[in-house]
């Protein structure tokens, strides 16, 4: 497998991680997942709606032979709730991977990094593969790595905002110092945002709303697939340096207007 992404010993050929929420229908979600080429999708854990038993489980719309399930602790506001949710997710999914979220504020949905660190330490101690959603803060990312996180997931912008990568410089610093994969999680609005994240050196990008909320989620999923591939290729290729003035790309020699 060429240029694969490896997290905690598991290898993925796609560097696009996709959510499972807010799609117009399960059919559209399934088609979008296929179009995105993703090999990992994230799912939330909630109480079973006992008035709607018998409806097809979300899992029946996900081909688990091709797509790895990454449960998350979305909606948790304390370390205790996040740890409890992670344990339930492990039991429901028979996997010890968890996208760890501990949210600190309802308006921004920014992470509570202090509680996130506490929950990361506990879950690592319990043997989980922890992927914490964090701020675009190099210090927070370093602490999470030191605590045993398998990857760090700094945000590009607030969840669902579609603002794109707000602090490219911080992402560069995070990537420069990290010895674990860096997955930009949240803030992507359109394909170019995903490409920017990858061009900055991110190992992968996770998005939900940018695809699920697009006018045509399946078409946007395909656009994101190409954007992530293009951004990754551009990063590996090495971009040219930025200059203030023009630098000609054709030779001066042999111009017909020069000397006679």
């Amino acid at each position, binding site marked *: 497998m060429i240029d694969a992404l490896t997290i905690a010993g598991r290898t993925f050929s796609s560097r696009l991680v*996709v*959510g*499972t929420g807010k799609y117009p229908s399960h059919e559209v979600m399934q088609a979008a997942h296929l179009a995105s080429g993703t090999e990992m999708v994230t799912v939330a854990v909630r109480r079973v709606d*006992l008035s709607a038993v018998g409806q097809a489980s979300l*899992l029946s719309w996900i081909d688990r032979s091709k797509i790895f399930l990454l449960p*998350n602790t979305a909606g948790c506001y304390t370390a205790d709730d996040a740890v*409890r949710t992670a344990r339930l997710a492990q039991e429901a999914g028979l996997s010890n991977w968890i996208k760890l979220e501990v*949210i600190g504020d309802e308006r921004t*949905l920014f992470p509570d990094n202090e509680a996130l660190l506490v929950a990361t330490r506990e879950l690592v101690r319990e043997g989980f593969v922890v992927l914490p959603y964090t701020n675009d803060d190099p210090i927070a990312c370093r602490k999470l790595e030191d605590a045993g996180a398998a990857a760090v997931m700094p945000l590009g912008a607030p969840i669902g905002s579609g603002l794109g990568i707000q602090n490219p410089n911080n992402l560069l610093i995070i990537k420069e110092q990290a010895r674990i994969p860096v997955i930009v999680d949240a803030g992507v609005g359109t394909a170019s945002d995903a490409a920017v994240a990858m061009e900055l050196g991110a190992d992968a990008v996770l998005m*939900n709303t940018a695809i699920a909320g697009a006018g045509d989620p399946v078409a946007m999923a395909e656009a994101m697939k190409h954007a992530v591939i293009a951004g990754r290729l551009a990063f590996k290729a090495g971009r040219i340096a930025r200059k203030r003035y023009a630098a000609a790309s054709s030779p001066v020699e042999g111009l017909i207007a020069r000397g006679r």
Partner: protein
Amino acid sequence: MRILLNGDARDIQPDTTVKALLDSLGLDFRVVAVEVNRAIVKRDRYAATAIPEGAEVEVVAFVGGGHACRKLTS
């Protein structure tokens, strides 16, 4: 006897096991996880675990989601 199931009061027979409760609810064991009084009950223990009176039972499953949501207002 009365228990609290997913936050709602529910009457069940004494000595009801987790397995019996899930069966009575028509739930597919393979897609849920169960907590009784905040402790996970492993799947292979469903039949052997009786639910005590007044227990807080949570039955959860995976649902669509990507990121955080607002706090539950309960």
